[in-house]
């Protein structure tokens, strides 16, 4: 009955979806270019890599699992402070374990918060994510004995990576370190996205009402991805602390939560590279327009947001994919 020429091979088809494309390999090769061609932009490149990792962590919950979050800076900030405090208060200066520690702390807080997150939807979800974000900011502000309050955390010292690579003045080590962090975080996320768990998350996003009807405890899935995402965001925050040797309340504020969503929307949600592309465009634009009044910077951000929602609901990558007439995930 079925035509052999038309009938797809299910195994081959599913396998092909997780395969590395030449574009991806070229993209990661291109991330090495700043070392050779734009050495004066290495600090910016490092900031982009950190923002991109943060955006990927948000994409996992927002783009893949469909949880709209307006407060993810709380995990970025918790990671940033965890990495800073372990160094400045306890003298633990080894960076990789510091990174791991920050990820664990942020992940633990994320796990606890996930019990609230999965209970609510719509407006209540927005308000709980927003509320938790604001609450964490106020808490950090009030606990100035630990966080340094509005002055920021002083006296952070980071030892050389592997005991060899010092964080140099030109930001070579910082970029290499941030890029490595981004790449590892990306690999992990890519693995998740192409796993059965990733499929289950897309199921939740596509139709949360159907999930119980196929026997799924979808809240457990959501808690799991929220925890993973919080840990990744924490690692991104820790990278910022370690490469700049400062941690301030700015890591926790609402603008950071909003900016990361803007980056993601700009690039395109639910496709990992969207966050990276969005972060790059956003950070480069802000760097180039640094001279102008921040109010006008936000005019363009606002204008762009409205434009993207009305004309390109799937972001730049989504728009490109449609132009190319190609359906990817």
């Amino acid at each position, binding site marked *: 009955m079925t035509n052999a020429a038309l009938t797809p091979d299910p195994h081959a088809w599913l396998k092909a979806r997780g395969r590395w494309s030449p574009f991806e390999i070229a993209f990661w090769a291109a991330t090495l270019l700043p070392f050779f061609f734009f050495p004066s932009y290495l600090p910016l490149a490092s900031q982009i890599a950190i923002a991109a990792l943060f955006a990927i962590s948000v994409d996992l919950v927002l783009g893949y699992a469909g949880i709209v979050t307006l407060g993810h800076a709380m995990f970025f900030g918790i990671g940033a402070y965890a990495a800073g405090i372990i160094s400045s208060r306890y003298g633990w200066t080894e960076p990789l374990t510091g990174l791991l520690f920050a990820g664990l702390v942020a992940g633990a807080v994320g796990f606890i918060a996930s019990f609230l997150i999965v209970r609510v939807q719509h407006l209540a979800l927005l308000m709980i994510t927003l509320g938790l974000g604001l609450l964490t900011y106020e808490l950090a502000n009030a606990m100035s004995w630990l966080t340094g309050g509005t002055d920021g955390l002083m006296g952070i010292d980071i030892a050389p990576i592997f005991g060899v690579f010092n964080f140099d003045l030109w930001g070579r080590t910082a970029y290499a370190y941030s890029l490595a962090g981004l790449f590892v975080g990306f690999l992990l996320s890519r*693995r998740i996205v192409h796993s*059965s768990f990733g499929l*289950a998350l897309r199921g939740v996003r*596509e139709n949360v009402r159907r999930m119980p009807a*196929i*026997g799924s405890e*979808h809240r457990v899935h959501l808690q799991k991805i929220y925890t993973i995402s919080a840990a990744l965001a924490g690692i991104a925050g820790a990278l910022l602390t370690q490469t700049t040797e400062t941690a301030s309340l700015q890591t926790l504020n609402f603008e950071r939560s909003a900016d990361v969503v803007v980056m993601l929307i700009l690039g395109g949600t639910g496709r990992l590279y969207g966050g990276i592309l969005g972060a790059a465009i956003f950070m480069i634009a802000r760097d180039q327009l640094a001279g102008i009044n921040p109010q006008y910077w936000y005019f363009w951000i606002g204008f762009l947001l409205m434009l993207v929602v009305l004309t390109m609901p799937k972001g730049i990558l989504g728009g490109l994919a449609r132009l190319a007439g190609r359906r990817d995930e």
Partner: protein
Amino acid sequence: MTAAEPVLATEALQKSFGQLQVARDVTLSLPRGARHALIGPNGAGKTTLINLITGQLTPDSGRIVLGGEDVTRTPVAARVRRGLARTFQINTLFPDLTPLESVTLAILEREGAAGRFWSNIATHSGAIDEAFDILTRLRLADVATRPTRTLPYGQQRLLEIALALATRPKVLLLDEPAAGVPKDESAVLFNVIAQLPDDISVLFIEHDMDIVFSFASRIIVLVAGGVLLEAEPSVVRNDARVREVYLGQGTHG
């Protein structure tokens, strides 16, 4: 559980929304391999009854027994894992997933493997084979790798059933499986349903009396939330009260 014992039973289910009583004293039982039809005029509470049985709604009183166990307070997903699956009257699918992905997901959820995030989806080859097998049986193999939202409506109705079958149900509740499907296509759909394994008990809601009389071994007539009659098709066909409910229409079409 003995052979004679019903796979699914409801005992005196009651449910009201404010003043409106949507289920009154509904007592039913579905034996193994049943092919029962649930009919009744619009607003009789047919979909509500399915929602009560599957757990989307909680009854005000009464009991639901699945395979000899009381599941009245059991959450929806846990009932599904005990073998109680349903389809929806209005397509409740995963628009951007392909049929292959959707059905594979349902199988992985059944096997408890959907939470694994360290291995590629392609490594679950048993589940993929089973999914493709179900899709082939439901004549969806050719479109298995196209996004669901691009499929014709009739094929989406079939995918509703495929998703339910992937949970390996003992009891299958079909809420108007052919809703909105042209008459000639709905025959195809019900042939698929007729070919379901004998050990699955089926309860289906359907408005087309031709289909009801050719596929149902027993018919339950629901009116205003209560069971008016439960009997063989020949009895229902000739029942004066049923004729009255479907006034003018007769019992045939």
